[in-house]
């Protein structure tokens, strides 16, 4: 038995107390603003701010009674789903391709990931100029969708690549050996094996698209996505339902990411 001297025990106890304090502060900084918004969203007051004047859900009703919000929500869902599916499909093809050896592989690999380090505001201006030069009118399913695919793709690729990279080429060869044509190999062997990774990637991609603001602002047309609409509402008028709106947006985004994480973790444990 080792006896711990009384003095050092006291020190370690004090240290533990500090550690708990630190962790507490950490999470307050991290989640404090979010909790504040959540609390404000149920404050029965037409001014955004404290003190609390009672609890109400009427701002939430107001949110869903706002046609601009519902339209924007629909737009964001439509663009989000399309961008996520398109970007994930492209990312899958890229990831499958990058398993092979070819000239300039690492250069091309890094080019795919480039948009991640490009500042959002520059990305937005570049897209604006690009579409202007090509004379493409800003609209939801042209400029905004392309901007979102462009933005989401490298992330989708980053999520899928490690999973697909380990995909054994011999499995594809075995399928081919057993009479499967290239598309059948993809459909019966490749796709089922990477399916959970792919679904997780689509969900992550959706969240990214759903939250995208800066690039979208530059290329948006008449139909606005949620972040763009939200931003203009803040600029125009500080409407009392804004906190409730924020909570709804956070919930949509977080739910998608959460399901994505769940699926990808389940797939990871199953592949052990």
């Amino acid at each position: 038995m080792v006896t711990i001297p009384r003095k050092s025990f006291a020190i370690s106890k004090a240290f533990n107390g500090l550690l708990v304090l630190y962790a507490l502060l950490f999470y307050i900084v991290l989640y404090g603003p979010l909790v504040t918004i959540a609390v404000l969203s149920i404050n029965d007051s037409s001014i955004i701010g404290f003190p609390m004047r009672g609890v109400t859900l009427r701002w939430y009703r107001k949110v869903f009674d706002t046609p601009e919000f519902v339209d924007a929500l629909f737009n964001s869902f439509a663009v989000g789903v399309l961008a996520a599916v398109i970007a994930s499909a492209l990312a899958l093809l890229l990831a499958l391709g990058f398993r092979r050896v070819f000239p300039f592989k690492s250069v091309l690999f890094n080019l795919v990931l480039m948009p991640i380090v490009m500042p959002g505001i520059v990305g937005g201006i570049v897209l604006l100029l690009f579409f202007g030069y090509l004379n493409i009118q800003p609209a939801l399913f042209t400029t905004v969708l392309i901007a979102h695919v462009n933005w989401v793709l490298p992330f989708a690729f980053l999520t899928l690549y490690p999973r697909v990279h380990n995909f054994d080429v011999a499995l594809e060869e075995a399928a081919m050996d057993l009479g499967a044509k290239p598309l059948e190999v993809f459909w019966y062997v490749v796709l089922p094996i990477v399916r959970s990774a792919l679904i997780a990637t689509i969900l992550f991609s959706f969240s990214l698209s759903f939250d995208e603001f800066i690039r979208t602002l530059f290329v948006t047309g008449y139909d606005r996505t949620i972040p763009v609409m939200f931003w203009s509402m803040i600029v125009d008028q500080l409407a009392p339902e804004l906190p409730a709106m924020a909570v709804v947006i956070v919930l949509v985004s977080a739910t998608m990411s959460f399901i994505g994480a769940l699926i990808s973790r389940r797939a990871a444990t199953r592949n052990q």
Partner: protein
Amino acid sequence: MNVAASMPGAAPVGANVPAVTIRGLSKRYGDVPAVSDVNLVIERGEFFSLLGPSGCGKTSLLRIIGGFESLDSGQVLLDGRDVSTVPAYARNTNMIFQNLALFPHMTVLENIAFGLRRKGVGREELGRRVDEAISLVRLQGYQSRMPDQLSGGQRQRVAMARALVNQPSVLLLDEPLGALDLQLRLKMQEDLRSLQRTLGNTFIFVTHDQGEAMAMSDRIAIMNQGRIQQVGTPEEIYENPKNRFVAEFVGHTNLLDGTVRDSSAHGRVNVECRGTIIPCRTETDLADGQPAVVALRYEKLDLAPDNECSSHPVIFAVVSDRTYLGGAVRLHARAANGLTLTGDITDTARVRNIAVGDSVRLTFAADAAVAVADAER
């Protein structure tokens, strides 16, 4: 194994058409030749092994036959039909992959049925053939298991069934036993051989393990640096190596460099190695004065009997090393003229008293030494 009887090995083709004919086949990867000018005929129903060190081109050759690699020049004929440009999925070959490549998301049954489903075989026939294949490899009761719930040997058998259920005219095996431990490996060798005998399919087996190739094959092709060095039965290759590489690669062999001295007798030559004349068999045309290599298997060496008169060649040497092998004792010995020989002596009663530094008289039967030309090919 009466099940196997109802499972014919290959589609009936003209009786005398070889299963595989390879003509002038070459394949390069960039500047590196993988397969160089290979000509090979593999008969129907043969258990044929491609044996060689890693990087010798045996796997490339197998993959070209299976349609997984393109060829640069030459031809591959399966059942007499040129398939040089036919993709893998349209060839009547099936492959057992080195890592087996079982589909991890499918059950044993789905794995085995995969090939028949792709070919659109009807439900009834599919069920029957899959059942036959399953009983052939003794996997009854495992149909609904996933591959990761099987042992190594069971996975091996699933891979066999998945390939054989398609009744390929040629089964290609790419070192499928490499990952198994020795016991299981020997068991699977036996299983494979008896499966092949029962079904009568043509098997092409790639291995770098000469023991495995010897034990299983009807014929072996020894490959090195993309070229076939020798084709023959295990006995032919062991007893009559055609060149230095084959002699060295198969079995444990003394290789003695020397010069041809007397080539007058047909099939026999004397080779002088550092002044020692060694009488040899040969299948090569060797001329007097030509450099040659004498191949002398370790186990062909023996201790000369004590009574002097022996018709066999005798070499005086000093033991420089001694290794106990159980069934034999391996002696490394050096003659006065610098000639070094290694012999596995099975005469344990006599070899027991021999220690390092002792003088010994090594002998070998008149037909034990083989002379080959001193160049590959």
